[in-house]
């Protein structure tokens, strides 16, 4: 009549529990490390893009300085657009383009398929020898069309 239910922890239960706990902790630590590595990769990319942008801006400023020096040297000659372009190319600014209305433009590679486009107008006769009207970062990546592989029904031919 006096039955006693005896609950005992069997041999091996603690091992199973411990294996599960260790597996859970290992999974969490690996997830944490993976998230940190992803964050680091994102930070690396942001750093690269920022550094490339400021290097492009620096290069553009150096080109403007060289262009201004050339404008100051040859302003009294009153050359036309083609001559200006030749003069600027001779002064180490090969990528600059001068249009007939004396508007100029050049672009500098800013990395990650981006170009820093700079433009304005040459005003060599005025005290400020050029104006800057464009300083724009442009994405040059071409979007490739990725058509969906949809079912194309064939037209039915009726006899």
């Amino acid at each position, binding site marked *: 009549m006096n039955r006693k239910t005896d609950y005992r922890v069997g041999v091996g239960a603690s*091992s199973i529990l411990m294996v599960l706990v260790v597996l859970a902790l*290992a999974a969490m*630590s*690996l997830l944490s490390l993976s998230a940190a590595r992803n964050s680091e990769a994102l930070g690396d990319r*942001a750093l690269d893009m920022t550094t490339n942008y400021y290097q492009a801006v620096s290069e553009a*400023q150096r080109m*403007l*300085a060289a262009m201004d020096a050339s404008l100051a040297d040859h302003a009294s000659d009153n050359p036309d657009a083609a001559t200006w372009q030749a003069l600027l190319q001779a002064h180490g600014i090969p990528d600059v383009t001068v249009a007939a209305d004396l508007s100029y433009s050049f672009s500098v590679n800013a990395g990650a398929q981006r170009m820093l486009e700079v433009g304005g107008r040459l005003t060599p006769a005025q005290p400020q020898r050029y104006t800057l009207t464009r300083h724009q970062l442009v994405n040059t990546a071409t979007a490739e069309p990725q058509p969906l592989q949809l079912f194309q029904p064939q037209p039915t031919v009726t006899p």
Partner: protein
Amino acid sequence: MKHFKGNTLLIELMLVLLFFALSQAIILQVFASAQQTNRTVSIRNAALMQAQNTAEFLAVATTDAETALLSLGYTADSDALFIADHLSEGYQLTAHISRFTQPSGVLTTVTITASQEGHPLFTLPAVRYQGVRLP
């Protein structure tokens, strides 16, 4: 028989504790590595943001680079070297100023370097050309 069972359980518990200790030694290293990576990345991101702020301010400042850096909280270490300590955030910014003067204007180059405990993190150039009006 009871005596034998008790010994088995004791041995199993000891083995389990040993396994737990060994596995925790490895797992804690992984957690610590993740924590260190996170800390380095967050410090570098904060330094990058501050360096960008400096570069953008220098690009539009109406004063010379030295005055602009002083107004941003940098301290002059020498004539051409300015330092901004962000030790509470774990990094330091140094700005080195160099100038190239030509008859038509001045090209000012400020090289901003971020470092964490003496180790360089990145370098950002901030260049500005200012032409002068010639007669």
